[in-house]
C-alpha cells in the first residue's frame, strides 16, 4: 500500500458525510419533520422578534432624541445639580459659534428652563416654564408637532404660552384664557407675569403633557433678567454615530468649563432600555437555545439508538471513532442548517412584509408614547443580531450533536451487533 494512501486512511470526504447525513435524516422522516418544524418555529420566531425589538428600540432612541432632548445638551457647570436659575450660561455666543462651524451639527437651539407655578383664579399647578426659540426649536425637536389646539409660538409673541394638555385640564383653561406664572429669578427673587394661552400640546409623554409651559426665549430672558443668556443649549447632529466626536470636541474646546451631556446618558429610562436590549436578546436566545437544544439532543439520541447495529457494523468494517463522531455531528449540523435556513427565510419574509405594512399598535397609543415608542412599528433586519443568531444556531447544532456523537464512539462493536 502506498504512503499516499496511508495518509488518507480513515478520511471520509465531505460528500460521503453529507450523503450519509441527508439519507439518515430521511430514514425517519416523521421525526425529522417534527424536529425541523420546531427549529423553523424557534429560529423564525426569534429572528422576527429581534427584528421587531430592534425596530422599536431604534425608534425609541430616535424619538427620545427628537422630541426635545437632542443628541447633546450643554448646561452651566452647576445647573443640573442645583437646578437654580443662577447657574445659567450668561454668554452662549462662543459655543453657538463653534456649533455653527461644525459640519456634523445639523441644528442647535437654546432654552431657559425654570420650575414654577401656573395659576388662574380658582387653582394653581406646578409647571416647568421653558423658554424656547420659536424658529430654532422645530429644527431640533418635535415640540411644535404636538400642538393640538391653537398655534405654535410666534417669534415676537412676548405674552403667549403653550400649555401641556393635562395642565390646561387641571387649571380648566382654554385657548385665549389668561394665566399667571410665577418662578424665581437669579438671587432668589420671586417674579410673576401674566401670559395668554395660545395653544395646547399633546404628545402622550407625561414629561410634556403634564409639565410644560412654553414661552418664547426672549420673553423668558427679559422676564427673568437673563440678558442673552440661556440655561441650556440643545444640539442635533446629522448622525447618531458622530455624537461622541462632536461632544468630545466641545469638551476639549469652548465647552471646557461646561456640563456637556450625550443623549444616552440623559435619561435613566433610555439608558436602562439600552442595557435591557442586550439582556433581553440574551434571555430570548437562551430560552430558544434550551428548547431547541433539548429537542435536538433527543432527536439525535433516538437516531443513534435506532442505528446502534449499524454503528457496530461500521466499526467492524474499520471505521474509527472519529468517523462515527463526525457522522452524527454532521447530521445534527445539517438538520439545524436546514431548519435555520427555512426559519430564517420565513422570518425574513415576514419582516419585509410587516415593515412594508407596519405593525399598528396605536391602540396602546399613549402608553407607548410615554416610552417614546412609535405607534406603528416597522421591523428591521439588523446584521448584528442576525450574526448573533447565526452563531447561536451553529453552536446549538454542534452542542446537540456532540453528546450523541461522543456516545457513538463509546459503543462496543460486538455488543452493538448483538442487538436486534
Amino acid at each position, binding site marked *: 500500500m502506498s504512503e*499516499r*494512501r496511508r495518509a488518507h486512511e*480513515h478520511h471520509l470526504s465531505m460528500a460521503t458525510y453529507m450523503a450519509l447525513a441527508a439519507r439518515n435524516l430521511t430514514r425517519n422522516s416523521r421525526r425529522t419533520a417534527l424536529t425541523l418544524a420546531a427549529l423553523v418555529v424557534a429560529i423564525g420566531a426569534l429572528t422576527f422578534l429581534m427584528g421587531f425589538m430592534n425596530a422599536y428600540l431604534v425608534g425609541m432612541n430616535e424619538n427620545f432624541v427628537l422630541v426635545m432632548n437632542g443628541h447633546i445638551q450643554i448646561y452651566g457647570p452647576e445647573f443640573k445639580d442645583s437646578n437654580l436659575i443662577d447657574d445659567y450660561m450668561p454668554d452662549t455666543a462662543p459655543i453657538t459659534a463653534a456649533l455653527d462651524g461644525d459640519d456634523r451639527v445639523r441644528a442647535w437651539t437654546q432654552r431657559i428652563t425654570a420650575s414654577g407655578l401656573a395659576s388662574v383664579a380658582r387653582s394653581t399647578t406646578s409647571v416647568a416654564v421653558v423658554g424656547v426659540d420659536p424658529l430654532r426649536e422645530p429644527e431640533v425637536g418635535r415640540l411644535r408637532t404636538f400642538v393640538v389646539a391653537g398655534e405654535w409660538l410666534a417669534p415676537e409673541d412676548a405674552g403667549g404660552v403653550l400649555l401641556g394638555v393635562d395642565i390646561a385640564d387641571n387649571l380648566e383653561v382654554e385657548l385665549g384664557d389668561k394665566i399667571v406664572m410665577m418662578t424665581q429669578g437669579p438671587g432668589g427673587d420671586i417674579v410673576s407675569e401674566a401670559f395668554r394661552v395660545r395653544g395646547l400640546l399633546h404628545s402622550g409623554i407625561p414629561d410634556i403633557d403634564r409639565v410644560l409651559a412654553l414661552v418664547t426665549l426672549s420673553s423668558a430672558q427679559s422676564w427673568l433678567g437673563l440678558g442673552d443668556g440661556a440655561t441650556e443649549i440643545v444640539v442635533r447632529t446629522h448622525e447618531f454615530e458622530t455624537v461622541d466626536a462632536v461632544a468630545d470636541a466641545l469638551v476639549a474646546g469652548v465647552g471646557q468649563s461646561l456640563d456637556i451631556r450625550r443623549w444616552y446618558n440623559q435619561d435613566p429610562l433610555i439608558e436602562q432600555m439600552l442595557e435591557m436590549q442586550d439582556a433581553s436578546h440574551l434571555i430570548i436566545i437562551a430560552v430558544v437555545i434550551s428548547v431547541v437544544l433539548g429537542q435536538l439532543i433527543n432527536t439525535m439520541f433516538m437516531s443513534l439508538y435506532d442505528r446502534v447495529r449499524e454503528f457496530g*457494523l*461500521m*466499526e467492524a*468494517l*474499520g471505521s474509527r471513532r472519529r468517523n462515527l463522531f463526525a457522522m452524527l455531528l454532521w447530521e445534527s449540523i445539517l438538520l439545524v442548517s436546514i431548519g435555520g435556513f427555512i426559519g430564517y427565510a420565513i422570518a425574513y419574509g415576514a419582516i419585509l412584509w410587516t415593515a412594508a405594512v407596519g405593525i399598528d399598535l396605536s391602540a396602546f397609543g399613549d402608553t407607548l408614547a410615554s416610552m417614546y415608542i412609535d405607534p406603528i412599528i416597522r421591523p428591521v433586519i439588523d446584521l448584528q443580531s442576525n450574526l448573533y443568531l447565526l452563531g447561536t444556531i451553529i453552536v446549538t447544532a454542534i452542542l446537540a450533536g456532540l453528546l450523541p456523537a461522543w456516545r457513538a464512539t463509546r459503543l462496543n462493536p460486538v455488543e452493538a*451487533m448483538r442487538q436486534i
Partner: protein
Amino acid sequence: MALIETENLVKTYRLGDITVRALNGVTLSVGNEEFVVLAGRSGSGKTTLLNMLGALDMPDSGTVRIKGEEFINLSKDARALFRLRHIGFVFQAYNLIRVLSARENVAYVLELQGVPKSERHRRADHWLNEVGLGDMGDRRHDQLSGGQQQRVAVARALAAEPDIVLADEPTANLDSGTGQQLLDTMRHLNEVHKTTFVFASHDPVVIGAAKRLVRLDDGRIASDEIKR
C-alpha cells in the same frame, strides 16, 4: 509463517451471577490460502473465537497474532485500523449500511482505506460483478434479497484486499440452494485470488465446502482435520 495464530485464548462472559467460559484455552494457527470452517454446537464459542481473530473483541488472556503482529493491547482506533488493513467481515445478518447502495457499501470501506474515488467505483463494480451482482450496484438493502445482501458483504470484504475474510454463519438466513451458490463463489475466490477464509457455521453446506474443519466444544478445540 502462519497468517493467524492464537495461543491459549480464554474469554469469560459474566451474566449476573453466572460466568460463561466462552473460550477455554484455544490455540489455533491458520495459514495462507486456507479455507477453514469452525463448527460446533450453538454456544460452543465459534462467534467468540471469530471476533477475536478479527480484532473485534479482546480475550481475557492469551494472544492473537496476525502476520506476526500482536493486537491484544492496541487501542480501539488502532484495532479499527488493523481491521481496515487486514480483515474482511461477512456477518450472519445486518451486513449492509442501510442508507448506502450496494456499490456505495463496497466503496465506503475503500474510501476508509484511502483509495481514490475513481478507483473505488471501478473496484466496487468489479467485485460486485465477481459475486454475480453486476447489475445491482445501485440497489439498497431493502431492494436486495438475503442472499444478495450476503454477496454484497463478500464483495465488500474482498474489494478491500484483506489478508483474511471472516464469515460468521453466512448462510444461516439463506435456503440451501442459495447458500451453496454463495459457498461456491467463496471457494472460487479462495482458489483464484488465494484469499484466506475462516467460517463459523454449523450449516452442512458450509461444513461440506471446508478444506479444513475445526470442531469446537465448550470453548475448546475438539478436533481439527484437513478435509481435502
